[in-house]
């Protein structure tokens, strides 16, 4: 299989604080990679580095066989990105925002307009196409972000909590979209804290813990080398977390007026 993304010994520090302590990732065409880890493990930092939002890193990142430091701009044309907390120019309308983003990726205005209108309609938010984004509900906003990340037909997708706020039916549509995209040879990085979803859609799972890769493999492989059961269990085990019961009990006792 053709290798799309190669990360070798990636390190990154903020001052004296080491966020990434040497990460190696190889991703191929058509993979859906569940990219998980506790808060602050360095997941979004990795993605930000790949997208060029953060500089000053150690190690090497190769996209489509080329080091991203050598041509720092053009490779972005092949990437789509749904950030977890997304800033949007929300005083624009859906039409205005999507065509703007499309044009930034080098699409013609008409092409971007046609595409975004059909995609919005398919996602069931066609009637909001010409209203201001500030009036959108959370789910509508999320759909807009998903469309904005796909409008230029990218080969590599980074999705951070993409189904946040979507209703169950839309989630089903979205999962189907991901499967279809992967079948077409797109590579997808899927970050989420909802383990059930990651477990079901990923063809491979990478777990980041404390700036290092703690596990990398298919769900079956992870089960074999760690605890059996759900991905949630494996997650708990790999991140060394066992006190959930104790903390939960304390929490409830304080809610009921007891002592800490």
């Amino acid at each position, binding site marked *: 299989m053709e290798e799309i993304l190669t990360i070798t010994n990636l390190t990154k520090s903020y001052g004296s604080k080491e966020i990434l302590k040497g990460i190696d990732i190889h991703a191929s065409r058509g993979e859906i990679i569940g990219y998980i880890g506790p808060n602050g493990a360095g997941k979004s930092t990795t993605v930000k580095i790949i997208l*060029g939002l953060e500089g000053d890193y150690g190690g090497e990142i190769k996209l489509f066989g080329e080091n991203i430091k050598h041509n720092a701009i053009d*490779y972005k044309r092949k*990437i789509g990105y749904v950030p977890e907390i997304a800033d*949007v120019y929300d005083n624009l309308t859906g039409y205005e925002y999507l065509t703007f983003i499309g044009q*930034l*990726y080098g699409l013609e205005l008409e092409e971007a307009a046609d595409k975004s209108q059909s995609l919005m309609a398919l996602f069931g938010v066609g009637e909001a196409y010409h209203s201001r984004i500030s009036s959108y509900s959370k789910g509508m906003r999320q759909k807009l972000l998903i469309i904005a990340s796909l409008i230029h037909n990218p080969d590599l997708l980074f999705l951070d909590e993409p189904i946040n706020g979507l209703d169950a039916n839309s989630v089903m549509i979205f999962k189907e979209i991901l499967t279809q995209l992967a079948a077409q040879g797109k590579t997808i990085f899927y970050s989420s804290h909802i383990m059930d979803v990651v477990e079901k859609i990923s063809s491979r799972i990478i777990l980041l813990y404390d700036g290092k890769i703690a596990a990398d493999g298919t769900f079956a492989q992870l089960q074999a080398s760690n605890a059996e059961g759900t991905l949630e269990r494996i997650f708990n085990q790999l991140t060394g977390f066992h006190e959930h019961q104790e903390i939960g009990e304390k929490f409830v006792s304080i809610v009921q007026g007891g002592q800490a």
Partner: protein
Amino acid sequence: MTDFKTLQLLDKFRLLFVKTGIDYDMMRKILHIKLTMDERKVPTLFNQNKKKGDQKYGYIKSLWIYVLFGLVLIPLMGFGQNFLFQMSISYAMIIFLIMTSLISDFSSVLLDVRDKSILSTKPISAKTINAAKFMHIFIYLSYLTMALTAIPLVVSLFTQGIIFFLLTVFEIILINLFIVAFTAILYIVILRFFDGEKLKDIINYVQIGLSLVLMIGYQVLIRSFEFVNLDIVVSFHWWNVFLIPMWFAAPYELLLNGNSSLFTIIYTILAVIIPIISIALYIKLIPTFERNLQKLLNTSKSKKEKNNRLRAFLLTLICSTHEERAFYRFATLMMKQEREFKLKVYPSLGFSFIMPFLFIFTFSRSGGIDYASSMSYLNIYFSMMIIPSAVLLLGHSAKYKAAWIYKTLPLKNYTALQKGSLKAFLVKLYLPLYSVLSIIFCYMYGIRILPDLLAILVTSCMYTLICYMTISNKIPFTKPYDEIGDAQGWKVMLLFIPIGMFVVLHYLITQIAFGSLLYCIMLLIINLLLWKIIFKR
């Protein structure tokens, strides 16, 4: 989305951008989107009432005040040969106005963090993004500068000749570059040492200061033309080097008055070199700036709440119930921390501090005041002009949507909230203002006016209640600011009438012996009763 004339004009300079390696088409698209968004910054509610064509040029329409200030420059720039003095003053004004307006209106452009995540993830070079940002600010600064200087420039062209005119145009361009670079470097320094919240606070205070200066400046300007004296001779001192406007005044001496002293030459060189150096420095620092910009997103360090026993005790005296106290604290925090509230209220707070003095001195010019017996201390009533607009604004908030919590709370009615917020306003904003005023007035008029001052304080409490009844906010901090319409504005104006009635009443009562003391006691009783009755419902 319609095309912009400004951008069509910019198209003429396309080659200039292409030559420097900027993707012009991309930059134009970004600018187009930015200008479209700026057009919509005008409060949405106003838009709906007006015709479609009206909402355009909202920014340009707001420039009339700068045109007005530009008129002051006419005598300075248009007449006289005392260039060093005249032009120093002119440039001081120009620099001050442009810089403060840049900080208050365009900081959002310089500090837009959305740009980073939306634009930087796209295949656009950083150079193009930065060029778009710079041009965005540049477009607005040109509007502003033109509004300010166009009329004086035309006058000077006829009175001072072509060389003066060209030199001024050239220097104004230099000054604009200098100001943008200087402000950006200032932000870089602030962001280097403080977090984003601090920077937002500083910007907020500059905005407040600017509105206050414009408000008072407008009042003072009208009265100040007689003070303009063009015969002042300015000579150079070494410390003048720090007076930036003077640099820009020096070339006139050199070129037009033929003064080629050492200082003139040094200043002329500074006027040209420093803007160029600062812009070069800015371009060099852009990457650092962008990196530090990330700080704006970071959460600021948390502060520990101080617990003050005495304050807690005093609070129980002011607010009787638990709910009311909670809301008093909340309203205090909102007034202290919501930047938009501060921006709207604090300038008028400063204004109502100045107003009494403005009136006293205006009248005192026509004839001397005998402070020992004068009644002109009644001018302190003018400080009450803050109350109606403050009470009106208490009903509004930028975060009005957060008001859903009141619907979910087990509250019988909202009187405690209203009472708490009104009291918080009186204690935290009005009382400090009034106390300082009172101290100054006591110093001027003697302590004989103490009973009167007390009576006026009680009147303000009562007046606050009248304002509250007239404006009739349902729940504090629950309406968006742009819902303040003309009707509300009229109410605020109408509410100035009772102030006049209070003044007349007070004046009549002071004619009776011990009148003010009795008046004070009477007011106190009425006041207490009124607060009880009104909030009973």
